[in-house]
């Protein structure tokens, strides 16, 4: 078992590795995500006992078992509620919520919406493999129209939800996307999510090797990724293509992928990435850019500052106590709602 954290000894990845087997299917994308988070945690300057990993139900939600911290494997879709309670109870804790496309956007959609709009200072990692894995392969709310599964043998007919647009609709203050085959990028995004004061929403494109293998290959497969991924870098133009010879410019209110140079776009037309723009239109444009029409944006789409719920709660309590002084039961028993019969004072 683990030993007590000693502040002098720097934490390493190994401190966050649990003894015993990891039980995802061989080849599952979750292994790489686990690896990335175990690499990130030692670098955050947080005592190990102050990490809390909360999850719902699903393959992704097995995550807490494999992080050697405090963990809570809760019930389907309800992780955001538990994580909110944890963070409000003790804002010192670094709270990580692990969810999936089914857990977070289907059964738990309501809770995800509200943790985002409240801006609870929790880091949310949504593993999006566009399938229900643990129940053995039903289409999920992010599956494209026409997905054939056991529950949709003729193909699904309902429009999928875009996780980034969902987060933006709730005006999440930090929205990012990364993918499971890029440990370095994941670790960078996780670190930024931790540093962000407020809710951080990270969509991780993840492969389910059993029920939806290669679902993201058209986006990040080895043969496609140079053309299909658009890495967002702060203050840098939105360039894509193997030779970075294409860029994104506006045509009216719509984005347009254009070749740069003679007969194409001038460099000055190419949009420059600004994740700190307070408006939502630019983020929305990025969130809606998708394969095959557009390259898929990867990185931090949006990071803005807004007061956090957990801090606001602590602050309100502080204000109340400054204004009214610490409450006493004696005062309560003299409020208008409960009138005393006999006059006289408390002895205390």
């Amino acid at each position, binding site marked *: 078992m683990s030993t007590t954290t000693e502040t002098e000894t720097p934490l390493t990845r190994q401190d966050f590795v649990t003894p015993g087997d990891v039980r995802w299917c061989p080849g599952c994308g979750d292994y790489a995500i686990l690896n990335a988070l175990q690499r990130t945690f030692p670098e955050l300057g947080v005592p190990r006992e102050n990490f809390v990993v909360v999850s719902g139900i699903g393959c992704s939600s097995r995550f807490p078992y494999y992080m050697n911290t405090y963990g809570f494997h809760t019930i389907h879709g309800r992780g955001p509620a538990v994580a909110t309670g944890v963070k409000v*109870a003790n804002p010192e804790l670094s709270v990580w919520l692990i969810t999936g496309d089914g857990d977070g956007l289907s059964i738990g959609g309501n809770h995800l919406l509200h943790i985002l709009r409240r801006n609870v200072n929790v880091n949310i990692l949504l593993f999006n493999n566009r399938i229900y894995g643990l129940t053995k392969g039903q289409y999920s709310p992010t599956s494209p129209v026409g997905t054939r599964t056991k529950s949709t043998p003729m193909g699904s007919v309902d429009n999928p939800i875009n996780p980034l647009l969902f987060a933006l609709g709730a005006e999440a203050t930090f929205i990012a996307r990364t993918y499971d085959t890029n440990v370095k990028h994941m670790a960078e995004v996780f670190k930024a999510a931790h540093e962000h004061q407020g809710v951080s929403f990270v969509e991780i494109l993840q492969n389910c090797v059993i029920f939806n293998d290669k679902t993201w290959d058209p986006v990040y497969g080895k043969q496609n990724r140079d053309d299909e991924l658009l890495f967002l870098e702060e203050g840098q133009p939105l360039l894509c293509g193997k030779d970075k010879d294409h860029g994104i410019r506006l045509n009216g209110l719509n984005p347009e992928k254009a070749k740069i140079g003679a007969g194409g776009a001038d460099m000055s037309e190419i949009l420059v990435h600004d994740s700190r723009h307070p408006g939502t239109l630019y983020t929305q444009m990025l969130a809606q850019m998708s394969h095959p029409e557009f390259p898929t944006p990867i990185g931090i789409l949006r990071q803005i500052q807004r007061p956090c719920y957990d801090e606001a709660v602590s602050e309100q309590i502080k204000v109340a106590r400054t204004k009214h002084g*610490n409450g006493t039961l004696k005062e309560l028993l003299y409020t208008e*709602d409960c009138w005393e019969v006999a006059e006289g004072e408390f002895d205390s």
Partner: protein
Amino acid sequence: MSGPRLVRLSEHIVEIVSDAGEGAQKAAVSFAQVCAKAGNGLWTVEIIPSEIQPPPHTTGSASGNRIRLAENPVTNVGNLANVVFAFNEMALLSRFEAGTVASDALILIDDQWAEHDIEAYRQSYRRVLNDVRNKGCRVMEIPLEKETLRHVDNPQRGKNMFALGLLCALYNKDLEIAKGVIANVFKKKSQEVIDTAIKLCVAGYQWGLDNFETSYEVPAVPTDAAKVAMNGNTALALGAIAAGFDLCSMYPITPATSASHVLSDMFEDFGGFVHQAEDEIAAIGVALGASWAGKTALTITSGPGMALKTEFQGLAVMTETPLVIVDVQRGGPSTGLPTKIEQGDLLHALYGAPGDAPKVVMAASTIEECYYILSVARRIAEQFRMLVIVLSDANLATGQQLFDRPDVSHTPRRAPLDLSPVPAGTLPYDWDPVTGLSHRLIPGQPGGMGVITSLNHDRNGKACYDSERNQRAHKMRSRKLAALQKSLQPPEIHGDPDGDLLMVGWGSTRGAIEEAVDMARKQGVKVSSINIQFLSPLPPGLKEIFSRFKKVMTVELNYSDDWGDPLITEESRRYGQLAWVLRATTLMDIDCYAKVPGRPYMPIEIRDEILRNVETPSEKVPAESHAKA
């Protein structure tokens, strides 16, 4: 000028009703305070319309209070009303429709409708008054509007204070007490408002002295004992603070919401917080998460909310996370009767969560208990790492009762949790094999890192699926109830320890049951009663107590099939919920009196049921209840 003739009574019930917004509530609450300060025993119940702004001058708009005042302490709403003071005839009619007014009641009613401009009002006024006179009621038409207009321009603002004065005259109350109460009720208003209110009250009092032929004297002994009066939801809220809770997570639901409103008003001064969640599920989820992370948390709800919380209840049980749920019961199933009382959630509280989910279930039987019960619930939740469900109901929630002022000399606010390191290797479930108890680890505590899970698990908290460890974990969780049961006392018996009939109640029916037992005992019936506070685990000694009576039956405000219906047989009859539980646990043939009138039982109804179930010593006493049940 000799004034009204004085009639002495040991108790009386008066209902004061108006259109919503006309101030009958304030008149009634003020009058109740006058009675209490004079030294009367007291129970008040709100009469609430189910819509926020119902159309005026309809039965659905009636709003006000029922006040039972007595020489001695009062434990329940009482029987049929002796006096109804109505601001219009539809409000009056609503009380007769509720079936809670005596056929010989005194009716006081504003006479403005007799000659109102609107023909329909004049007609309905005459019709309703004729009807109640025909029932046997005495009707006294009061120039409420006209007299009020002599003192203020807008009678809507002031009628109720004239009414207060009138009631003080009717019940021979000291006008000086009334003036003090008015000054307190309007203490946030200007002196002018207070002066006007007092002027109207004095005018009403004088009108009463000049016009009432008789007035009532319910003896009251001024007492030195410090007493407070509050409704059950306020008592729950203050009790939550007294118990040291840090967080109340809720979603608005009738009739539970006002408890969290009271909390919201003052909780932050104590370092607490009310979290309004996005739904009932999240409300318990936030409470559970906060509790795991070291706060003392509760969630307050009512039946439909309980249904939504069941999966999280299972999680609290499975992970042994301390948690308190308050269920202020209302009529069900589904949306049912949102503002009315029912004790319909007992079986749901006990067995609602899927799988075997042992938990503690307690019920408050008085408003005073609403104040204290959360301290007990919290202590059990933490010491046993258990889910504790506290059942209250709409009757307790909105009724007001006098009780001894709680001793607050030792404010039991809890010190911050101890997060000091635990030895490396400390397990999240170091179950004691005898009691099932284990130590709680809290995030932030060095050395205690580990996962807790909704899956079956072993002592180390890790998921496991084998039969042996599944059986063991169930056993450990279950043993905690048995261990708690060892510390409980058998219930006290109201009446003799043996006899012909034992009435068994739980929750807010206690006062009415005990009063009914007292009435029947005066008629020579060998009947006693008990109230069961712990529904899970049940207190010890029940079987032994039951065996000393020829017949045992529960009294509950929930549904049971009637005997005597040709379709209903011994095999098919569905019993009241406590009866189910007691029949199963004692293997005794326990009957029930269980109905869903949507209002509290009157003692006379229970008394009549007692008489139906025993050989009456002298003659068969006919049922005299007028109530529609």
